[in-house]
């Protein structure tokens, strides 16, 4: 069971208090009708599925907030978590370790 830091509550809590919410930083297009079928497919379905550091979203059931995380999918270790809407955290050497 993972331990996850909620950036809103500023508390590290067990996985049972969170739900996974898929890849992060896939913004809904401002004007979907302007997108081609392929572009819309990319938004809907295409996922990075990274092996290694992965930008993803979680929701803390306790406070109800969605937030972003950078987690290594090989070790399952969280490298960082940050609030929704914040810029993608860089993959620093420290974070990637």
């Amino acid at each position: 069971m993972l331990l996850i830091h909620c950036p809103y509550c500023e508390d590290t809590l067990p996985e049972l208090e969170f739900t996974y919410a898929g890849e992060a930083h896939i913004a809904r297009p401002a004007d979907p009708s302007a997108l081609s079928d392929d572009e819309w497919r990319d938004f809907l379905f295409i996922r990075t599925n990274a092996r290694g550091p992965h930008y993803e979203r979680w929701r803390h059931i306790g406070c109800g907030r969605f937030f972003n995380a950078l987690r290594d999918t090989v070790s399952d270790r969280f490298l960082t978590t940050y609030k929704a809407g914040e810029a993608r955290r860089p993959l620093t050497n420290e974070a990637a370790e």
Partner: protein
Amino acid sequence: MTHFSAFSLLKQALNGHKGWREQWPDSQPKAEYDVVIVGAGGHGLGAAYYLAKEHGITNVAVIDKGWLGGGNTGRNTTIIRSNYLYDESAKLYDHALDLWDNLSQELNYNVMYSKRGVLMLAHNVHDVQSFQRHVNSNRLNGVDNRWLTKEECKAFCPPLNISPDARYPVMGGALQMRAGTARHDAVAWGYARAAAARGVDIIQNCAVNAIRRGPDGAVIGVDTAKGFIRAKKVAVSAAGNTSVVMDSAGLRMPLESFPLQALVSEPVKPIFPCVVMSNTVHAYISQSDKGELVIGSGTDQYTSYSQRGGLPLIEHTVAAICEVFPIFTRMRMLRKWGGIVDVTPDRSAILGKTPVKGLYVNCGWGTGGFKATPGAAHLLAHTVARDEPHPLNAPFTLERFTTGRLIDEAAAAAVAH
């Protein structure tokens, strides 16, 4: 290839088993192949076998980063069935079932396909509606599946608790008698041996780092831990690692890889005569030839390549099994393990051509990959050899995610009301 039979076994037994030869050689890569298959699981090895046997293409290499059959082929709960809802799925899996039926004889390797029957339990009115739909659809497709009352379920599977006081009482079930289990390792080994006998190279412990494309965009080969290997065609059959491999060819996939856990109990004398699945409580169970109860659970919630899973999910799975089969609480868990399953948005596989010339993909089987093994292998071989899909896998394209023509087995089981 030494022919396997009771006679050869007896002969070798008298000889101290000194005469057995290796079942497949440990091949080193050649400079060039007609076809390179990435991933030496049952699907990849089987595709190589059918390429050689049915299409005369024997200059084939199957390459794996680990040992053959070490991925999901060797980590699943070995359930085989074809009673899927949509025509496309039922036909595909039934094709596999037809091949399973004769696979031991075909490969001269006993894969222990055991037609024990798969019983899917209905716990509420919605389940009943959904499984009746399966049963009716399967019947008109010529696919074996029938409805059992809860008393018939109990007669078929005596450990089942059909008390109306259960938290999720059993209201009946759909039984596919032709379905069952098989010995997973034997499938990989049987295909490997038969493919090798037809000239296929099986190259283990050789990671494929990238798929290389030529100036015209077409595939020209693969970069591996043992150097560049030229190939006219490349078929990726790498399950949980498909996204990573395809990414190297510039193709991003509609896939996510999740941990899937399974476990076995200590072995006991025969007590459980069939396979039972319960989608409502998220668990499935059978008993292996060795006597272990083999139990599978749902996927963990997050994507992962760690082949590790959490304790809470296992607790829930075991509790679900003991809720439906309360006599098993004093049985003991012997071991549990994890696999990596690649899941598509509509929970159906992708098996066919890609936008890259000479590149083919077989992935997205989710939790259903083992049962599809001979079918997927056979159809992948057809698709690679002819450069066009077989009618049975034609619906399982990548394009369906653009057009919206999904084959949504998961949605079909949507929770109601």
